[in-house]
């Protein structure tokens, strides 16, 4: 089972890589001109539903001018759409392989596959991709974000396999508690959503710059991304969903710490960085709720929050020594 899990991880990395390439094909085929017409309406409609009256159709003159190019453009658009759907399908396959790897690992170890950093990163990234399907199902127009998502997946899963790989061992007694499932499951889940949340956050920052007329390097990449307002809203929804779960996870951790180490909060490096993440994300939610703070600034806070989560996941395990030393790295 252990070997099977390892092979499945390798295959899922390859599948994410393929999905990324197919997404890139969609991206390359994507043509800005076809976005006048029904798709544009769909996009804007999703973005600013509350505004009402959006997407009332293009001006007749524009329609006439574009008519000649429509056929060719639509053909390309159809191909791009096909590529996009193909990319999603490959991502699904990759996610299934990924899930299979996790299950095999769990069966081989006879416990939840969250016992060390390798398993933790695998689970967090799986939660990220699974939540991506939920987002995609609710808002199909955001499909192009898949390019960035699969990129993040390839990086994370490959990092896990190449740098963090640990053979299967049972849990140390300190982890042998039902709080292990409660605390770690919620931490994994919320980290997965934060991971997904940083994709629209980064995309928003590029797209917002693009919409303001910037055409230099990172902004130009956002040419074919969904509208900035939709990305920004998705960023907020994901973080607003994840933040209470993260808060619960930290509280559950404190309750567990009281039972295991005799104190609810002791400023262990992991705890300290969870505190930092919590404060930064709280700052993001406050900043977003404050009209005088620009959305750009707020979104940067979300990105910063994710960096602190990554610091906690990788940095604290590698650089600091603390009570949460279950990384499995020597």
């Amino acid at each position, binding site marked *: 089972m252990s070997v099977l899990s390892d092979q499945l991880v390798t295959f899922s990395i390859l599948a994410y890589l393929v999905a990324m390439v197919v997404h890139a094909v969609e991206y390359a085929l994507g043509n800005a001109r076809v976005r006048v017409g029904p798709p544009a309406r769909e996009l804007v409609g999703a973005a600013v539903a*509350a505004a009402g009256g959006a997407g009332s159709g293009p001006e007749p003159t524009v329609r006439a001018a574009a008519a000649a190019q429509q056929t060719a453009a639509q053909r390309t658009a159809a191909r791009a759409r096909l590529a996009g759907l193909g990319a999603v399908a490959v991502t699904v396959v990759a996610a299934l392989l990924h899930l299979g790897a996790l299950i095999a690992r769990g069966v081989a170890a006879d416990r939840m596959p969250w016992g060390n950093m390798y398993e933790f990163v695998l689970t967090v990234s799986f939660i990220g991709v699974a939540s991506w399907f939920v987002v995609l199902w609710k808002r199909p127009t955001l499909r192009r974000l898949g390019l960035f998502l699969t990129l993040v997946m390839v990086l994370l899963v490959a990092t896990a396999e190449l740098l963090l790989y640990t053979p299967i061992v049972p849990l140390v*007694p300190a982890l042998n508690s039902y709080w292990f499932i409660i605390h770690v499951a919620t931490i994994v889940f919320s980290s997965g959503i934060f991971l997904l949340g940083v994709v629209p956050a980064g995309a928003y920052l590029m797209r917002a710059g693009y919409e303001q007329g910037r055409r230099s390097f990172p902004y130009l990449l956002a040419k074919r991304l969904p509208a900035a307002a939709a990305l920004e809203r998705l960023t907020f929804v994901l973080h607003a969903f994840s933040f*209470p779960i993260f808060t619960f996870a930290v509280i559950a951790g404190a309750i567990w710490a009281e039972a295991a180490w005799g104190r609810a909060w002791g400023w262990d490096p992991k705890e300290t960085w969870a505190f930092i993440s919590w*404060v930064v994300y709280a700052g993001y939610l*406050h900043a977003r*709720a404050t009209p005088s703070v620009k959305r750009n600034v707020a979104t940067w806070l979300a990105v910063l929050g994710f960096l602190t989560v990554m610091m906690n996941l990788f940095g604290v395990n590698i650089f*600091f020594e603390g009570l949460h030393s279950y990384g499995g790295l020597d």
Partner: protein
Amino acid sequence: MTVTDDRPTPPAETPRPRPNPVLALLRNSWRQLTSMRTALVLLFLLAIAAIPGSVLPQRGVNPEDVRDYFVAYPDLAPVLDRLGAFDAFGSVWFSAIYLLLFTSLVGCITPRLRDHIRALRSKPPAAPKRLDRLPQHTVFAAPAGGAPAIAAVLRRHRWRVEVRGDEVSAEKGYLKETGNLLFHASLVLVLIGVALGSWYGWSGNRVLVAGADNAFCNTQQQYAETSFGPQVQSADLPRFCLQLDDFEARFLESNGQPEFFNAKVTVDENGGTPRPAEFSVNAPLRLDGANVYLLGHGYAPVVRYTDRFGRSQTSPNPFLITGDIGLTGEGLAAFPDANVDPATGERDPELQVAFSGLYLPTAPQEGPFVRSEFPTERNPLLNLVAYRGNLGLDAGIPGSVYELDQRQVDAGRVKEVGTKLLQLGEVWTLDDGTTLEFLGTEPYIVLSVRHDPGSTLLLVSSGTLLLGLMGSLFGRRRRVFFRVRPADPAGESSTPGSSLVEAGGLPRVDHPGFADEFTRLVAAVSGAGRRVDPDGPAGARVGAE
């Protein structure tokens, strides 16, 4: 920390003729402090200020690391120490940030609480004149019963409703602000809980060797290290005694990783009858007024020293584990009362004896014998150095019972008199004819005994914090208005003679699902009444969303 931007604006104050400059400064500072911008900056500062505490060793977490840091950076460490960097979370700068933040928070939520209570007690406002200016708007045939019937439907949908003649105003989603206030108030309670714990809490750590002779009772002197809150006296400690009967540990055969711990103890609380109890990692022993936590374990070799007058002393000496997986222990067996002349009763401090070295539960087959291979006792071995001389224990200087006073060695007052690998049951005869026998080992456990009176408050306020947070994030305040009016005289309506209802909806926060909700609500209100479309686009808008 104003979150909602739709706070009712306070009535404009009549300008006072000559404002006191001091008062004005104070008022402006207060406004500045309680502004959202300041709160955000403080939050950000708080996050940054927490970083040094994770990078530098902390006294509260690991005092040994701080000592090591002083050795490694003799120039930098005192400077950092003066800045409070080794107690970062209790330092002036960290405290200043969170106290300012909490002041800002209280200053912000207090007026909001007042406003919210007022809003909860007041009725939904009257409908605006032009309902078609609201984000949601539609017109439909009036249901039978008119405004009261509409109000009844709305009440069934849990709206707060006010009927004014032909108009119905309704509001919903007060939970958002309630939750928001609850969340912030809970944060204050969490802080109070932490403060209670640090003022009235205490803790002590010690090693407890198995056996009736090694039991201890809960007094401050019985702990190797204690931490008492400023409001705690040593007389406040609850009375109990603890004796370790047995300690069980299981390890993985493959790599020695621990799998299971369990400590069996006898507890004697408040002078009652002693009772047996068990505890483990993750399952502390909860006593009246104190909890006992299992932090670690190891072996205490029991050795018997027979001095030159033939008198024997036996002692179990906990050898502190050095941190490897094989539970290699490092420690000291000191016999300061050895070699007392039984005839004169005089003690020669120059003839005190101590044995310092390592204990290996599973010694390797070949040397060097410095690292145990497995945590259970498969091949127990003591690797000892014998010392004779004045151990410095009489000087009254507090010293470690786990290591020899190095100053005495350096000063030549203690001399090394031999080294030996000692197996179980083996007797070592020293140069002066005295002997040391390795009798066996007893398990010992490292205990932390703690009391935190703030923990219940912490738990409860964390719960309300979470509830408040969810209310605040997922609650959405919105208003709807219905106005029953006679049918359009122009006769566009398909049901001439009947009256129409004009409805408008206003989400007071960002709420993309509001259009759907509004459509459903209108459908529920109109009931069997057929929707009409007197003014095209506005009616069509509902369908389009």
